């Protein structure tokens, strides 16, 4: 009784195309599903990494704090500007990328900042760790005497700090 039933089933060709098409359809849906899952997983990982970097960067930027100890403009000699700073924040490796001096009518900037210790020797790493003091000299900046200027320095993490200078 069973043998003739299987025999008929294997010999019959009428429903084969429907089974194959269903199998192919299922396989295609599974493949597309896994592809979509993989892509979304990868994309979400990338987004998560970006988001993490962004949060870390913002957190580190918040921890940065620089204090101006003294800003001296040598108007009678080299017309250089000496900026003495202290890393009073809660993060190491504070690196200066740019300095700006400006008032209402004039502005100047430098992107070459060589930090030195207070004793005048160069800081090889060119950054300040927590509690460290240093300075840089902006040579021949040529400020006008008797004016007020804003000195702004920015760090590579994106923080900026300002000081009002009266020459």
């Amino acid at each position, binding site marked *: 009784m069973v043998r003739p039933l299987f025999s008929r089933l294997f010999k019959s060709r009428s429903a084969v195309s429907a089974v194959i098409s269903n199998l192919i359809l*299922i396989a295609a*849906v*599974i493949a597309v599903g896994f592809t979509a899952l993989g892509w979304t997983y990868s994309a979400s990982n990338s987004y998560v990494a970006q988001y993490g970097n962004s949060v870390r960067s913002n957190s580190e930027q918040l921890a940065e704090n620089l204090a101006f100890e003294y800003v001296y403009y040598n108007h009678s000699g080299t017309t250089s500007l000496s900026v003495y700073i202290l890393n009073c924040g809660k993060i190491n490796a504070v690196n200066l990328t740019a300095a700006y001096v400006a008032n209402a009518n004039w502005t100047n900037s430098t992107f070459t900042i060589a930090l030195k210790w207070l004793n005048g020797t160069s800081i090889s790493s060119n950054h300040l760790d927590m509690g460290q*003091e240093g300075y840089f000299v902006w040579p021949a900046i040529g400020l006008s005497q008797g004016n007020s200027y804003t000195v702004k320095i920015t760090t590579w993490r994106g923080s900026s700090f300002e000081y009002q200078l009266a020459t």
Partner: protein
Amino acid sequence: MRNRRKTAGKKGFSSVVGAVFMVLIMMVLASSYFVYSLSQNNVYNNAVAQKNQLNVDRLSESAEVINTTYTPYTNGKVTVYAQIKNIGASSIQFLTVWLKVYNASWTNYNHSNLTDANVQGGSTFTLPPLNLTVSGFNSNFTYSFASWLITARGNVVPLQQTIVSANNIIVAQVSQGIGSISMDFKQFRYYDFGSGYVSNGTSLPSSKNSYSIPNSNNTILAVLLTNYDNTTQDIILNANSYFWIITPQAGTVKPAAWNIANVTNGKYINSFSTQTLQYGKPTIVYFGPSSPSFAASALPTVVPVFILLFGKIGTDDFGQNIPFIAFYIP
């Protein structure tokens, strides 16, 4: 019959599988983003809280400057002395002191790092007299002096400003009149060795800050001397320097003397060569060991003291007597 068709039908199977994958994807995305966002928000909130705390600490620092003194010398050195009271609740660590000297046509500045300058809330910090060199002084002009302290939190504590005319730049000139070496009377100390012999290499006992010294015990005397000679040269004291006292009691004029001594690393060394007093640098000079050993009939007594200093300044001889002290001998 209808239920059988439903279970046997394959037409909706792919849709079910697709829906399952969609739900999976949505669940994975939503849950991971949600959890990760929470953790990152927590990180950021912590950073903001730390920043706020930093600002609160910085703003809560409060110091009151009680007294500031600037003592300029003709060679460009300025001694800065100040007392600062921490009137805030949190402790303050002073890192650096800055000094700016200027007039209408000239400005110069210098700084000095401070060590162990931590002041608890309510306490007073005495800035040790700091010698800062600001080159370019000219004693014919009037200068303004400004200085400020930098705290570890980045605050600036300005000290009082002073205008000093050329007439105030006289310490060195005064020293020319009464002697180049000055003694800090408050810093006088002696070391009591008892009646025993003080051998080479003996460690100094605890010092005593008193002008009342024992009659019979061996003592080493210590005075804090500063060279204010206006030529700013070092003074080199030789072995012909003494601490000398004399008593007129009991019908005899009996002197006692303490030779200048060598104390190195807190130990008495029984050989002395020379001792250099650098310009402007307070230096402890030791004398002894010796004792007055006056007769009992002469005691108690108060005796005059003479610090006899002899040596070289440059190539010239130097001699000075500091006579302003008295000892009580019980």
